[in-house]
């Protein structure tokens, strides 16, 4: 449409000494810590520190703290992807400035729909894409309610959360449903390659895609802009409704994918299984440095946030601590992460 020839290039830039242009490759340590890059240093350091301590403890006390045992690693790799994938969707949506409380209900409902389709004879390879499409539709409906009627997404998705929870019971009843998609599908979704779990590979792959979208694609730039300052984004010609709607759809997609992975792993779906997972996903995002107000956050942060929550759960299990300790620790972690992020931001924008 237009050639990008800066008006000043011919005149002013000619006399410019090469040395005056800051070296683009130079990144100071303090700048990294100030959080202006795509690298969430704080959570990365915390995550590595926790892993280091766990590994060290496991080497020193191999009998009491079996963190590095094969069975424990496999448990961790199995547990992380479901929450992790939901968190990726929620994280992107939160960065765009919106919430989705209905992802847990979406996760259960789409899982049950897929399971009944498979039970009625449809191939899982056809049922799964249908389920994913349903998840996207549920996400888009949230976006429509929020954006069309200008109500807070917190309220809109609280409503749809209850709606889809009810629909799950209406559609299938309160009993659990079996999920037998066949060996090939199960191995693809919840199989093992050596020590590695395929579900974890899916999580890593999706994280890479989301990373590329948020940090390297122009759509990601629009998400950051709309979440950071909707007025500015609009003034510059970005359509916030379209950007947010797409983020809602992606959150729905992630919820449905997590539902498929969970069902393949366990072989059954409980109508109540999704309860509370939306809050844990939001927790993973907050721990990973995503701002509740939108505009800030990284995919690596969300990835590590989900990983950290499960690592802590795992540590407590290995130490045979009663279950309520988990809630106490996660509570402290969320508050700590939120306070820390706030302090960093205030120092940055000083």
């Amino acid at each position, binding site marked *: *449409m*237009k050639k*990008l*020839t*800066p*008006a*000043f*290039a011919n*005149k*002013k*830039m000619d006399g*410019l000494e090469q040395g*005056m*242009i*800051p070296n*683009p490759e*130079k*990144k100071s340590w303090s*700048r990294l810590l*100030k959080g*202006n*890059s795509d690298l969430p240093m704080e959570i990365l350091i915390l995550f590595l520190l926790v892993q280091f301590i766990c590994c060290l403890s496991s080497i020193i006390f191999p009998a009491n703290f079996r963190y590095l045992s094969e069975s424990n690693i496999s448990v961790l790799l199995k547990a992380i992807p479901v929450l992790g994938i939901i968190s990726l969707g929620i994280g992107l949506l939160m960065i765009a400035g919106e919430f989705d409380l209905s992802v847990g209900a979406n996760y259960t409902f789409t899982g049950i729909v897929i399971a009944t389709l498979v039970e009625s004879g449809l191939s899982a390879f056809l049922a799964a894409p249908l389920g994913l499409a349903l998840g996207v539709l549920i996400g888009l409906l949230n976006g429509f309610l929020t954006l069309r009627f200008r109500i807070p997404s917190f309220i809109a998705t609280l409503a749809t959360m209850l709606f889809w929870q009810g629909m799950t019971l209406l559609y299938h009843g309160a009993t659990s449903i079996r999920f037998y998609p066949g060996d090939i599908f199960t191995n693809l979704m919840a199989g093992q390659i050596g020590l590695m779990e395929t579900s974890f590979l899916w999580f890593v792959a999706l994280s890479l895609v989301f990373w*590329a979208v948020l940090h*390297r*694609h*122009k*759509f990601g*730039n*629009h998400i*950051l*802009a709309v*979440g*950071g*300052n909707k*007025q*500015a*984004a*609009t*003034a*510059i*010609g*970005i359509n916030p409704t379209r950007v947010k709607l797409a983020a809602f759809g992606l959150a729905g997609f992630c919820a449905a994918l997590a539902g498929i992975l969970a069902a393949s792993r366990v072989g059954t779906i409980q109508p109540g299984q999704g309860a509370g997972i939306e809050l844990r996903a939001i927790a993973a995002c907050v721990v990973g440095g995503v*701002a509740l107000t939108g*505009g*800030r956050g990284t995919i690596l942060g969300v990835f590590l946030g989900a990983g950290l929550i499960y690592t802590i759960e795992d540590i407590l299990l290995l130490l045979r601590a009663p279950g309520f300790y988990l809630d106490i620790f996660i509570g402290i972690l969320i508050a700590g992460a939120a306070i820390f992020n706030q302090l960093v931001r205030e120092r*940055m*924008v*000083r």
Partner: protein
Amino acid sequence: MDARPDTNITPVSAAAPGSGGVGPLLELKGINKSYGPVQALTNLDFHINPNEIIALLGDNGAGKSTLIKLISGLVQPDSGTIMVNGKPTRLNSRRDSEQLGVETIYQDSALVDSMSITRNIFMGRELTNSLGFMQHRKMRQIASEVLQGVVNIRGIDSPDVLVGGLSGGQKQAVAIARAVYFNRKILLLDEPTSALSVRATEALLEYIKKLKEDGVSSVLVTHNLYHAYLVCDRFIVMSHGQKVCDVSRQETTIEELTRYVILE
């Protein structure tokens, strides 16, 4: 950037066909605009010539911002025509005015605090490959050059700095750098100096003058007559949605302008 076959908007140019090479870049004729019962603009004529800086003066509620929004494509007139290069044109969106070569700079410049300077400069107009992935290195290099170029923003050493950490003046300089890089022909500044320090204001006025040499016309909305008189070539005073005065610098004095603004 996306091609739009459905519109026939061409960038403003001083040597447009039919304008004889000396016509206005942009001309508004008989514009009316109301917000419900409030008549914000009444039968307004307005034009921007090549290479001129216009001061848009008038009390609060006079309709200055509405006029700026109209040219930015954010607001549409109830009646009247907008002429570009001698042709009637509809500006239905910010995209349309962008194609025209218009950039608007607000008091709270349209920047995102939580994003880097580079990302802000290219926001909504990212340089991408055919798949839409951003050419980050290229954008960064350009941002780096723009920071050192015509606007020469003091105290910023890297285009990776978050805009939220900049001062008001530095932010506006970034917004202007954006306009400069994208080769805008008309700069609209709606009360850009109200949040600026004295030095930052002087720097801003200096940019506007420099840009005029490069062929960029500006419309400066301000309450400060002294600032306006420093840089502007033509003065337009508005009152209750109407133009009450339109004089060139040669035809007036600061005293006369003061009287107009105060009386109206």
